[in-house]
């Protein structure tokens, strides 16, 4: 099954009492499925079935009235077309994982 590559970006309003909780839970769902590239930006390379799960999990947490969530569907060779500068070089989950 062909994998999908999605860039997940979000803004969560943390000023209301439930905000920090939503933010935490959205971040946690993203971390389970992909790699954090910036504070509110995740790259996820997923089987279609896992993408369905992640999408549902994120939408369930979102407060439509004040948060926003964006999914960018990327081409497979995203790594080749990406430049990174500065700190926090993200992990390449498709490449060799050696720690």
């Amino acid at each position, binding site marked *: *099954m062909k*994998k999908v590559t999605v860039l997940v970006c979000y803004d969560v309003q943390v000023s209301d009492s439930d905000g920090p909780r939503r933010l935490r839970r959205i971040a*946690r769902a993203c*971390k*389970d*499925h*992909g790699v954090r590239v910036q504070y509110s930006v995740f790259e996820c*390379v*997923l*089987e279609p079935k*896992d993408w369905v799960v992640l999408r549902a999990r994120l939408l369930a947490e979102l407060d439509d009235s004040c948060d926003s969530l964006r999914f960018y569907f990327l081409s497979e060779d995203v790594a080749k077309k990406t430049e990174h500068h500065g700190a926090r070089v993200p*992990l390449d*989950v*498709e*490449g*060799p*994982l*050696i*720690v």
Partner: protein
Amino acid sequence: MTTALNTLFITLEGARLNKEGERVVVTLHDEKKAEVPLRHLRSVVCLARAWMTPELLESCVEAGIHVSFFGMTGRFLARVEGLPGGNVLLRRAQFRAADDGARTLEIARAVVVGKLGNARQFLMHARRDAVEERKPVLEEAVRRLSGHLRALERAEDLEQVRGLEGIAARDYFEVFPSLLKGEARRFTFDGRNRRPPRDPLNALLSFGYALLAQDCAGALAGVGLDPAVGFLHEDRPGRLSLALDLMEELRAPVVDRLVFSLVNRGQLKPEDFKTEAAGGVLLRDEARKAFLVAYQSAKQVEVQHVFLGQQTSWGLVPHLQALLLARVLRGELDGYPPFAVR
């Protein structure tokens, strides 16, 4: 079909692996070193003394992620997995075939044909690039391997197959020094030795074969075969005989080729190794890491599967071969077609 899921290698001595959400988190002295979603993993390989929480182990077993532990030399220590997967009927068919002399002979023969064929192919490639004065030596080895391949067809019992394999292995390793180029000639090689390997090239071969054997064991378990019940290799407690059988045809094109390309390109040098008091030779940490990176990258390289007529990657070859072997054992295929390098 298994997708090319990744392997997480742990090389940090004293690392701690625990579970957060659906992720593996690796820490060393309270510093977070890596965080990987479980769903990206097919196996976790600990090459250093690491420890793992029971919660993580439980999740790995449930998700079908194999966890294996190796000593510093690449010596296999242990492997953790849940209940054997797949089909009990297939496993019974495997055991029956292993008890059947005629079927054992046919599969063992196919495995050795695959091994010698690919070893021969590897030497032919090397001969093409070799300097003029080395060509006759390689030519002669290729000729001998061809002879052994013909003799294999006439082998009447398992002992003859094993005997031919042994002779062929000696002929093959004998020409290894001729494969070294330029600066790499500082490496010496006087036959294959192991437990412990006594020179750097043997250390690299042992390390590579240990990794490949685990990949093969995982592929076999993935289709529901018992990695311990083999055909060419006799049953022995603790030995993954079928994984060793499956590995034979991949030794030369995967490990040997990788080892020589690393030393001939100067990516690994004699200084990258250390000798222990007992005479065993080990890779230094940086060299081990370089080898692992190269091994993982080699798995991404595309290759043509002649029998299946499709393009695949080296990493998937053990899985495809395990599937073909399962078909043979179920009686859906007449003979086992070893993976042949073109």
